[in-house]
C-alpha cells in the first residue's frame, strides 16, 4: 500500500477526456430529449425532426466512442473502471451520513491512476458494459430494421421487442444521468468541486509514488 498523505494539484482530466466527457454529455442529452419525444413523452420538435436528430446524434456518439475506446485501450486508462469492493461501504456511508458533516472527509483517497472511488467505478462500469452496449445494439437494430430481412432476424424478433429493450435502456440511462449529475455536480466539497475538476482538468489528488510525476502539476494554492 503506497502511502497517500501528500496532495498535489495535477491534471486529472486531460483535454481529450474533458472533450470526450462534455461532448458525450451533450450528445446523450440530445438523444434523451429526442428519444423520449419519439417515445411519445411530449411533442416539441415533431417526430420527423426528433427522429432525424436522434439518428444524427447517434452517429456522432458512435464516432466518439470509437475514439474513446481506442484511447482507453492505448493509454491503459481502462483500468480506472476495474471494480473493487474494498472501501465501497465506506463510500456509501459517506454519501448517506458523512456528507452532512463538513468536517468528515471523503473516505476515498483519489490518485491519478485511481481517480474513481469504488462506487463510481461500479456506476461507470455499469454505464460502459451494461447500459451503453444494450442501448447501442438495440439502437442499431432499430435503425437498420429494414435490413433484418437479410439477416434472418426477421420473424423471431419484432421491432416492438427492439423498441422495448431500447426504451428500457434509455430509462436506465436517464436514471444514471440524474444520479450522476447530482453526485458529480452537487455533491463535492464545496458542492461544485467535482464539476470544477471536470471543467479545468485539475484536482487536488493524493500522490501515489508509483505514478510518474505530472509535469503539468500546479501549486496547490493555484489549483483551479
Amino acid at each position, binding site marked *: 500500500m503506497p502511502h497517500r498523505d501528500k496532495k498535489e494539484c495535477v491534471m486529472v482530466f486531460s483535454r481529450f477526456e474533458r472533450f470526450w466527457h462534455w461532448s458525450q454529455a451533450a450528445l446523450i442529452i440530445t438523444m434523451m430529449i429526442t428519444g423520449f419525444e419519439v417515445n411519445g413523452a411530449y411533442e416539441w420538435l415533431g417526430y420527423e425532426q426528433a427522429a432525424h436528430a436522434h439518428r444524427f446524434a447517434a452517429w456522432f456518439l458512435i464516432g466518439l466512442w470509437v475514439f474513446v475506446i481506442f484511447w482507453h485501450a492505448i493509454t491503459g486508462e481502462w483500468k480506472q473502471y476495474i471494480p473493487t469492493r474494498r472501501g465501497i461501504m465506506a463510500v456509501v456511508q459517506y454519501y448517506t451520513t458523512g456528507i452532512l*458533516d463538513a468536517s468528515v472527509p471523503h473516505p476515498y483517497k483519489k490518485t491519478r491512476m485511481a481517480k474513481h472511488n469504488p462506487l463510481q467505478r461500479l456506476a461507470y462500469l455499469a454505464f460502459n458494459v451494461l447500459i451503453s452496449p444494450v442501448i447501442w445494439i438495440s439502437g442499431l437494430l432499430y435503425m437498420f430494421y429494414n435490413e433484418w430481412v437479410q439477416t434472418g432476424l426477421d420473424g423471431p424478433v419484432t421491432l416492438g421487442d427492439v423498441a422495448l429493450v431500447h426504451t428500457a435502456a434509455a430509462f436506465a440511462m436517464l436514471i444514471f444521468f440524474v444520479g450522476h449529475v447530482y453526485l458529480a455536480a452537487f455533491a463535492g466539497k464545496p458542492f461544485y468541486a467535482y464539476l470544477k475538476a471536470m471543467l479545468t482538468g485539475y484536482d487536488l489528488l493524493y500522490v501515489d509514488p508509483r505514478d510518474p510525476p505530472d509535469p503539468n502539476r500546479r501549486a496547490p494554492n493555484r489549483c483551479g
Partner: protein
Amino acid sequence: MTGGVYRSRFRSGPRRARRRIAMAAGLTLACAIGLVTPTATRAGVATNSTADHTTFEELEGPFADGPSVTAACLHCHTNAAKQLHQTTHWTWRYDNARTGQTALGKQNVVNNFCISVQSNWPRCTSCHIGYGWEDASFDHASETAVDCLVCHDTTGAYTKPATTAGHPDPSLDLAEVARNVGPTSRANCGACHFNGGGEDGVKHGDLDTSLIDPDFALDVHMDADGLNFQCATCHTTGGHEVTGSRYAPTAIDRLGIDVPGHTDDTRATCESCHGLTPHESNSKLNDHTDRVACQTCHIPAFARGERMTKVRWDWSTAGRMNSDGKPYHEEGSHGYTTYTSKKGDFVWGADVTPTYHWFNGIIRYTKPGDTIDPADVVVINAVEGSADDPDSRIWPFKVMHSRQPYDAGQSVLALPHVFGQDDSAFWTNFDWPKALQAGMATQGIPFSGAYDFVETQTYWPLAHMVAPKDDALSCNECHAKRGRLADLTGFYMPGRDTFPWLTMAGWSLAGFTLLGTIVHGLVRIVATARARVRGG
C-alpha cells in the same frame, strides 16, 4: 372492419364557389337533357398515326347508327371487335382466380350507389362500350355492337344519352366523329370513369372531370401543361385489354421498373416506373416501400380537384314527397344535391382524408344472395391483408358509406329495380316492395316481402390525383399517437406505439431518483445551515 368515420372538410372561398356553381349549373343542364357528357374541352393526345382517317371512303357516311360506324371500322380493323369481346370493359364480368369468386363484374355485383345493374340495364349500360345492352338477352358475340367511338372520339362531340343502353345521341353527325378518331384520351375514359355512380366525381374520389385538364398540383402525371399523361400511359393496353383492375389490384409490384424482358406488360403500378427505392435523397423513405403503398403518402387527400365526391348515401329516406305530393330535391350550400326523393340523402366531401387499411390485393365481395348480418356494417367489397402478411401494404381508400335496402326475410342485400317507366321502378312509383320484388327477380333471388335498411361500405383504393412531392405526407402524419394510422393494429410503429407499463415504470424510477437527490440535497443544506448556526 368496423364502421369507419370519414373526415372531410368542405371547401369554401369565392373562386371555388363560383366554379362549383358553374359546374352545378352545367350538370343540371346535362341531367336535364339526359346526357353523359364527356366534355367539350379536350387536352389533346399526341398522335403519330400513319393513317389519316378523314380521307377514308369507308368513313364518308352518312351513318344511320352506331353499329353502322363499327361495321366501317371493322372493314380495316378486322380483329378489333374480337379483341374487345375478351375484355372486362365488354363483358362486365370478372372471375377472380385469387379468391375463387366467379361471376363478379359490374353486371353481377351489388354496389352501394345505385345498387344493382340487372334490372336497370338501359340506364347502367349507357356506360357500356357497346350498343343496345337493353336486357339480359344482349348478344355479347355481336361485333357491330362494339362502340369504337366512345373510346376513340377526338372531337368531344360524341355523347351517349344516359338512358339509351349505350346508343349515341341520334342527332350526332357520326361520320364526322368517325373521321376524327384517334388515341384514347383522359376525356374518353373519363366519360364513364369520371362519372361513375351517376354524376361527376360521385364514385371514386380520385377520379372526376377535373382530371380532363388538370394542373400539376392536382396530379403530377396528368398535368396538362406538364407530363400530360393520358390514362393509357399507365393503364397500358395490348389487344384492347386495358391493364389495372378494380377486382384484383396489385398491392405491391416487386417486379419494379419495367424494361423489356422484365415486365408484367403493364405500367398500372407506381413501381412500374419508379421502382421500390424511388427516394434518392432520403433513404429512410425507401425503407417504407415494402409496407406502405406509394399512394398512402403521395395522395394525401381525395377529391382534391374542383369536384366533391359522394361519401354517404342514405337510401332509407328516399321516397318522401313534398307538400304537393311530388318528388323533390334539396341542395346544400355547396351547390350539390343533398336530398332527392328518388335516391335519399347524400353527404359530399372535398379534400377528404383517406381511410387506411392493410391490403394484399385480395378483395372479397358480398355477392347477391350472400347472407349478411344486418346488425353489423356490411362491407360489400372487403379488402384483405394484415401486418403479418408480407404481401400486404398500407393503402389509402375512399370508403363509401351507405344505408341501403336488404331483404329482412332472408338477410341478403336487396336489389331494387329503380329505373324504367314501368309500375315497379322505384324512381317512377316510389314503392319499395314493388321495386325490390322486380329487381331481385331478375337475379333469381325471390324477395321475401320484408325489407329494411342496412349500413354498408365499399372500399375504393386510391391511385389518382397524385400530389406534388412537397404535398406528400410528412412523417408526423402517421408517426404520432393520434395520427392517420392510429386505427391500424398488429405492428409496432415508432412515434405511435409505446409500452405503457414500461413508460410508467421508467418515468417513476427516474422520478424517484430525482426526488431522492432533491431530498438528499435539502438534508445537506439544512445540515450545513445548522452546523453554521451552531458553529456561529
